């Protein structure tokens, strides 16, 4: 039971972070492995705002999210947009990895390697649910994740801009043909994908201790989630995020915590051997 609740609560936060990743991949065929460290960057933003300026964590997001959006846009314009050619996706991994190294090094310089955790009353206080205690932050974080994901869905399915993003997700070349400015859409998408991680970072930082090297552990989970869900599928990321954390928790309780982390990856390997396109992915289109 505990595992299930935690799976849904924490899983949705992972899903939020993974959504940014899958959105970027779907539209641009870019795998942004800096996503993990960007989550941590978001966490440090929140940390600075709350410890140095005394701003509430959730209120601080009003600054953090736009700031992360700008970070994303800059990274896209300066580095990612230059990638071209058949090896673009592989190169994107290397480039964003290098960006991650630079950010990681800088964060280490600025904040030292000591572990931090965000604090606020709702981080420290717990409430009881089905006989298990949960800090309030889990629920608030869950609500925030659901809220942001819904906002994203509304934007994608109800606005004109959302339609052009979806058109680019389906077929970049065709989208360009009907007059969609794919370059601009890509930049904004990247910005959005990174901006969401700002919120994810705050929740992550409040529910875990972190330092700059936590990014590496995070990215491997996020990648697993998007592959499991089917790369480029937004709904898939949500389902896979919740599924993964639930499985991990159950294995942790039933067997041992050692196996729980491994189960994460084993689920992926098993699913992929049965369904190479992931849970919700589409096989590459028709043979002409």
């Amino acid at each position, binding site marked *: 039971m505990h595992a299930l609740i935690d799976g849904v609560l924490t899983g949705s936060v992972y899903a939020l972070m993974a959504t940014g990743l899958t959105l970027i991949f779907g539209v641009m065929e870019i795998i942004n492995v800096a996503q993990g460290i960007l989550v941590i960057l978001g966490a440090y933003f929140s940390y600075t705002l709350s410890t140095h300026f005394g701003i509430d964590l959730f209120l601080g997001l009003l600054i953090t999210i736009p700031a992360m959006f700008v970070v994303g846009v800059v990274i896209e314009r300066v580095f990612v947009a230059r990638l071209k050619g058949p090896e673009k996706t592989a190169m994107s991994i290397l480039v964003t990895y290098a960006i991650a190294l630079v950010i990681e090094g800088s964060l280490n310089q600025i904040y030292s390697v000591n572990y931090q955790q965000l604090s606020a009353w709702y981080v420290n206080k717990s409430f009881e649910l089905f006989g298990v205690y949960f800090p309030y932050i889990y629920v608030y974080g869950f609500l925030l994740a659901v809220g942001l994901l819904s906002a994203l869905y509304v934007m994608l399915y109800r606005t004109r801009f959302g339609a052009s993003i979806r058109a680019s997700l389906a077929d970049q070349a065709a989208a360009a043909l009907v007059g969609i400015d794919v370059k601009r859409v890509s930049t904004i998408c990247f910005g959005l994908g990174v901006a969401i991680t700002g919120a994810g970072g705050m929740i992550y930082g409040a529910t875990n201790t972190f330092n700059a090297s936590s990014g590496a552990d995070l990215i491997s989970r996020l990648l697993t989630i998007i592959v499991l869900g089917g790369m480029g599928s937004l709904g898939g990321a949500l389902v896979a995020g919740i599924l993964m954390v639930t499985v991990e928790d159950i294995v942790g309780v039933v067997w041992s915590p050692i196996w729980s982390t491994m189960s994460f990856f084993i689920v992926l390997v098993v699913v*992929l051997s049965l369904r190479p396109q992931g849970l919700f992915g589409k096989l590459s289109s028709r043979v002409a």
Partner: protein
Amino acid sequence: MKKWSNLWWLAGLVVALVLPLVMTNPAYRGIAVYTLLFTACATSWNMFSGYSGYVNLGAAVFYGTGAYSEDLLANHLNMSGGAALFWLVPLSGVVAMLIGIPVGLVALRVRRHTYVVITIAIFFVFQLAATNFGFTGGTAGLTIPFIPWMASYFDVPFYYVALAVLIFAILLSAGVRRSRFGLQLLAIRDDEDRALGLGVQVAAVKLTGYVMSGFVIGMCGAIYAMKQGQIYPQFVFDPLFDITVALMCFFGGFGTLVGPIIGGVVLESAQQYLTVTYSSGGSLYLIIFGALFLLVILFMPRGIVVYVKDWWGRRQSRIESSQTAATAGVAS
């Protein structure tokens, strides 16, 4: 042209052979051994990933497996430390290759982009397994029988064995490039479905390429284990290894024969140098390495080899056109 390139290879070989005799500083010799090992890894990584386009970001699976088998075999066979341990190196390569068969069967079922990510996931499975299983010694790692060689001479045998492995890797990669098998890998890179429809047994060809690269990388891991004496899961199953090897190939020229050699030699020696110089400020090293890496990829996206070739081609055609212009001038 052909003559010249043969001469270059010969020159490189001679330099590599005499280097440890000239370079007597043990620290530099150590750097040289690592450079050879990484260059061999890059060369054979490229032999599969570069030719087929299936970018493998889990090559450390082979490296770590090779390292662990070296130690486990040495301990099981009750060997004493010494040159005899080198016999286990090819054996460890074979073990890495065998482990690569089931891994490849799973990973190669998916196409390109997903493949990249699943190799990362499989890598983490191996890292976690090495950290948590009993027979791997857990986080404490494993120790190989002590090798009682003098410090001043210690790295020399390693150097020559690593060089032999590198030469083997280069010959293998060149051989693949000339073979029908290599042609099939290239066809898979360009259009896998089309290749399948022309009778290429793509699944078998991909798996073969994958485990072949695993053999060499596994041997390198084994040499590393022997040289270190002690191995830890996080150092032999290191995500940085995966990225570094891929970077060397992209830096030098993805899918070319010489690219990974240049990339390996330049980057590994630079990295070792940076580590030695900035070892105090570990994060500063990360920043410098990351920034260098970005510069290279952004300014030479197709790698040094292609960049130089293009430049040379442009230069030649400029010379030719100016010559024709000159003769035309004379004629008129």
